[in-house]
């Protein structure tokens, strides 16, 4: 069973600090210090041991828009501020083939240094779904063109800021 569990949702918040405060004070979630540098501001929050809420900000940010596949306008409210729902998954090659077989557009996101590979896709109602393959590193060259509409690799460039490298 390649897709194994529901993992998190990402909220693009109107006010990042107030939203973090709500999840901490009202719902009692804990701030995680495990969030990698994505090149845009945000937080990860934990319920128990599970990081299940990801926050980003509505403040304009080009890397965020590129990463999340869409431009996030200011002033979005309600469930429209939820950007995506994420699942954990295993066997990236198997899942990629399954999605490609159904002719569904995919976007790859790679974090080779953290051992994380992601596939983003849209459901029939245009909801963004993120699949996380923990500990899986794919061969970018072997995967090029195999059903991916875009591919982004994030890596630290010699102690400087996170850089995003685009294909397609």
């Amino acid at each position, binding site marked *: 069973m390649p897709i194994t569990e529901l993992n998190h949702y990402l*909220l693009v*918040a109107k006010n990042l600090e107030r939203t973090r405060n709500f999840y901490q004070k009202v719902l009692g979630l804990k701030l995680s210090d495990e969030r990698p540098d994505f090149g845009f501001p945000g937080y990860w929050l934990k319920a128990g041991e599970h990081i299940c809420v990801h926050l980003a900000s509505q403040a304009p940010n080009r890397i965020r828009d590129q990463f999340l596949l869409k431009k996030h306008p200011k002033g979005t409210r*309600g469930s429209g501020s939820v950007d*995506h729902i994420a699942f954990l998954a295993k066997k990236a090659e198997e899942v990629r083939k399954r999605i490609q077989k159904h002719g*569904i557009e995919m976007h790859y996101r790679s974090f080779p240094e953290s051992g994380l590979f992601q596939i983003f896709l849209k459901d029939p109602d245009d909801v963004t779904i993120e699949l996380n393959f923990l500990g899986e590193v794919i061969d970018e060259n072997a995967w090029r063109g195999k059903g991916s509409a875009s591919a982004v690799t994030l890596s630290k460039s010699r102690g400087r800021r996170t850089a995003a490298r685009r294909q397609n």
Partner: protein
Amino acid sequence: MPLERIDHCLLQTTDLAATRDWYVKALGMRVGPHPDFKFPVVWLYLGDKDVLHVSGGGARVSENRKRYLGQESQAEAGSGVIDHIAFYATGLKQMIEHLRRLGIPFQQRMVNDQGLYQLFLKDPVNDVKIELSYTNAEAAAAGIRPELMASGLR
């Protein structure tokens, strides 16, 4: 009042069958049992866990659905079709006291044949609806009663 983990999301769609089929075919989920909410729903499972709940959406949702859940958005595409996100939690009585102390409004719902007790509240910054899902046993032990039960809908 700890929230233990993320439990499920509810998507509202204008095409229940197509949405169900897509999650089954593209992502390998399976359709599984769900309680009788008196409005149409599909529950999608990974292993033994329901992770996505799907109900009707758009402009023509049923009155029972509106009474039980409300409707956040009549959007038919994009993240506006996500009605709410649910967490599994323990410590119902403490959470109710905590929310009252903070002056945060919430609704109480119960699905009697599933042993499920729900609190619904809004993240006030972004207006996102959050469900906190407890066991019925916890509510019964604390003598807490909901405002509305699914079995009360006709």
